[in-house]
């Protein structure tokens, strides 16, 4: 028997299944949300990040990072924005928020709860997207007039999704 016919078996762990299921959930929300109209460009609730925070609180940072990054990549493939400017913004935002969440989860003591995490993630997401948009796509000083409005939106939506996260955590605990 030739070695070409060798069969490769992948044995997914429980952790792999968990990541896959949670990512599927996050992607679903991501897609539904991309269909929602937005009054101002650059502002959307970011409900998919609710899943990231819930995962972070339940299974820890590595799982949350997987879910967040897979969500952005697979979500963009499904919507058809992979490697477009939208994807670049989305990806950089996700990297920033997962980084900030990682740093936040190192806090000693009781640490951060749902609201703190999602506020930090939302603000890091927005600030990074803004920087990337400014550096790569619209390098015009007029863009900074939008910054206060965008950051206000991120704070509001950060608190809102924080409340959603704590509601979810209360249900599933």
């Amino acid at each position: 028997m030739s070695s070409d016919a060798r069969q490769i078996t992948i044995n997914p762990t429980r952790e792999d299944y968990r990541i896959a299921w949670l990512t599927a959930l996050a992607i679903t929300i991501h897609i539904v949300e991309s269909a929602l109209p937005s009054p101002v460009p650059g502002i959307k609730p970011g409900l998919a990040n609710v899943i990231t925070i819930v995962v972070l609180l339940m299974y820890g940072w590595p799982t949350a990072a997987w879910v967040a990054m897979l969500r952005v990549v697979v979500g963009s493939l499904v919507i058809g924005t992979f490697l477009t400017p939208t994807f670049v913004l989305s990806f950089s935002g996700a990297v920033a928020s997962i980084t900030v969440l990682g740093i936040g989860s190192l806090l000693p003591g009781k640490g951060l709860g749902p609201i703190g995490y999602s506020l930090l993630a939302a603000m890091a997401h927005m600030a990074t997207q803004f920087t990337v948009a400014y550096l790569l796509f619209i390098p015009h000083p007029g863009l900074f007039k939008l910054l206060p409005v965008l950051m206000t939106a991120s704070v509001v939506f950060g608190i809102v999704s924080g409340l959603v996260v704590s509601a979810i955590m209360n249900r599933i605990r």
Partner: protein
Amino acid sequence: MTRADFLVAMLALGMLPLLYNRYWEEPVEGEDAEIMAGDDKKLKVSLNTNRRLNIEGPLGTSVLEVQDSRIRFVSSPCRGKQCIHSGWLQNTGDFAACLPNHISVTVRGNNRHYDAINF
């Protein structure tokens, strides 16, 4: 809500007024004015020298005045006098026009600003 949550929320809310303060700052004073008369006549006037300008339009002569880095319509042979009521123009992007006499003034600065950004 943990204590760290509260701290993050306070910092976030405290940052917002600073952002508005920083980026919605006072408008920039203009360097010069661009006067358009008719469809093709374009005139660039520095706001540093005080002077009066007589601009000819289809209705007659409109008088513009430059003083202390500002510019305004002093008189115009139109009916509504909207241009005169616009008053002094000083900051980058300020604009006044006498449509009946086909004359408009825009204040420009060193870095050109856009009217609007669409994306």
